């Protein structure tokens, strides 16, 4: 068997039906981890068997915010930080939709942090994929809420000194029913986690640590995207069920990965139906939750 250069009669890449190929090549830099996560997401969709006409993807702003625009689904590229409340409206107005929010750490945790914590608290039935490249990529590598201490960023030229968020702990403490962390190195585990999270009723959250070779790795003299991937391989430890309070990420330190939380809790619409039925009886017709048999 030999290497085949893709031609008209060669088989197409199995992820292509899930992507808007008329928009390729994408904007992401060489060695960026976002494309790998999208690749895994496409494969998670392949194996999940959902009717793709009923899957919607919502992104905010930033490099990962561009994901929505590349997926061949009903896709929404919204405003900075507001993907989750947009997704909330979309899901509540049509619970039949499988709604996935796909965005970055700056978008979801900083400007959108308030929305993240409340969607988790309410247990809105959506999946949030947060690609954590530890800074603001699109705008040139500024320090963010997930930048580890001492890491150099364009607005932290002497190194970051704020306490960063521990994302799984944040999502866990706000009530997310499924919380996992993987890195862009862990492609099979990430794919599986995406599938599990989408199947989980309620608010599921996956953090994916990924390189920003152009701004994080380069500015911190950590090499390129491949060097970051090797670091993830060497320094990641899988601890399923680990207490999320113990999974902080230090600068170039060990990364605890795995599925940390998998629990049951009524979704927003289930709780709403329960309350209204209890109080209003036959005057209330239960609203569809998207979870009916």
């Amino acid at each position, binding site marked *: 068997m030999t290497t085949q250069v893709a031609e008209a009669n060669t088989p197409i890449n199995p992820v292509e039906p899930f992507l*808007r190929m*008329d*928009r390729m090549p994408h904007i992401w830099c060489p060695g960026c981890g976002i494309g790998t996560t999208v690749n895994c997401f496409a494969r998670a969709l392949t194996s999940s068997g959902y009717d*793709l*006409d*009923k899957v*919607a993807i*919502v992104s905010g702003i930033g490099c990962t915010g561009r994901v*929505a*625009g590349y997926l*061949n*689904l*009903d*896709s*929404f*590229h*919204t*405003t900075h*930080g*507001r993907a*989750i*409340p*947009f*997704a*909330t*409206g*979309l*899901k*509540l*107005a*049509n619970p*039949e*939709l499988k709604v996935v929010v796909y965005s970055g750490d700056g978008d979801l945790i900083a400007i959108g942090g*308030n*929305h993240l914590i*409340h969607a988790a608290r309410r247990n809105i039935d959506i999946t949030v994929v947060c690609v954590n490249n530890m800074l603001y990529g699109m705008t040139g590598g500024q320090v963010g809420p997930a930048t580890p201490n001492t890491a150099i960023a364009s607005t932290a030229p002497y190194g970051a000194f704020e306490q960063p968020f521990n994302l799984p702990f944040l999502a866990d403490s706000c009530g997310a029913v499924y919380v996992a962390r993987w890195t862009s190195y862990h492609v099979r585990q990430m794919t599986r986690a995406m599938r599990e999270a989408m199947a989980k009723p309620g608010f599921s959250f996956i953090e994916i640590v990924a390189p920003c070779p152009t701004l994080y790795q380069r500015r911190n003299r950590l090499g390129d995207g491949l060097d970051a991937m090797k670091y993830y391989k060497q320094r990641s430890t899988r601890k399923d069920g680990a207490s999320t309070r113990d999974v902080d990420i230090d600068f170039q330190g060990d990364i605890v990965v795995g599925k940390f939380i998998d629990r049951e809790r009524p979704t*927003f619409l289930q709780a*709403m139906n329960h309350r*209204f039925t209890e109080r*209003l009886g036959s*005057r*209330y*017709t239960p*609203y569809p939750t998207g979870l009916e048999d």
Partner: protein
Amino acid sequence: MTVDPKGVLTGHHYLDGDHACCEGALAAGCRFAAGYPITPSTEVVERISARFPMIGGVFIQMEDELASSIAVLGAAWAGKKSMTVTSGPGFSLMMEHIGLAAMTETPVVFVNVQRGGPSTGLPTLPGQADMMQARWGSHGDYEIIALCPNSPQECFDLTIEAFNLSEKYRVPVMFMMDECVGHMTERVIIPKPEELHVVDRKFTSRPPGEYLPYKVYDGWVPEMVKAGDGYRFHITGLTHNEVGYPAMNWQAQEKLVRRLIDKIRKNADEIAMYEEADTEDADVVVLSYGITSRVAMRGVEMARAQGAKVGTLRLIVVWPMPETKIREIAGKVKAIVVPEMNYGQVALEVERLAGGRTQTVLVPHGGGTVHDPEAIARAILEVSR
């Protein structure tokens, strides 16, 4: 046109403007609402939260106005008619998504029960100082439609109209109430469902593959789709082409933004709603809107008692302005007197349209209470001398 009778509370009621606005939304077919508490608008969503469970709607109190104002966009793209409700400080936070709604041509209604400002201002007292913000508050260039009711009955009737206009033009519609109208209680007659005029969303009949989300097949406005119907469409706040894909160039900007402006501006006469009285032989016309139009009537009567020949023009749709009508009036009167609860917003547009052919006299008032009718009468008498 289809009216869901479940949402129509036919009969004679005694309602305040906020509650009447809620009933108007329900009658118009609104089935998703998101809000955040803020005086003096909260009663609208309080009533929605009580009424929606009985008619199959979903209300969610979001964590802030940023969230509320985009949740309603999400619901719109899932196919629901949706609305959010706020007052000045919350309206400031919503600007981001008024811009997104304008750019993505999302039909949605923003209710602003205006209070005194700037900043926290006068939470429980009236103002009309958000009129320019309603028009220009989000960054970039765009057009919206804004309506100003002056009674609880109009809060009902015009909320339906606000939804109708948002559907017809695929534009965010600002429903600009004020604290007085919102908290004033009067008789509100809600007609039978079959007597209501409700505009349905114009979903495309083209199959996936033959449809482009931002191609205008007919008129000014593209046909809409909703998530889940197999169109696999893309919506973005970036400048986009007919496919809906980002297009970062001046040609795409010119084509898109020009149309966003023109679909409203070139239809201004059709969108216009106003009440005109006694302007034929008037020396002075008083132009007003919202609660101030009712206060102004007292001032007009006082001036007439002293011999002034005064006509009135009440704007119901304030944005876009009925430019043709205002130009016509400007050509035949000595002055247009504009009382408003701010220090000159709508008056500036009137002055521009008058174009030096007549005098435009602002009767300003900072809000906190309505105008003293005597101040309006004095202004009329001064210019009619």
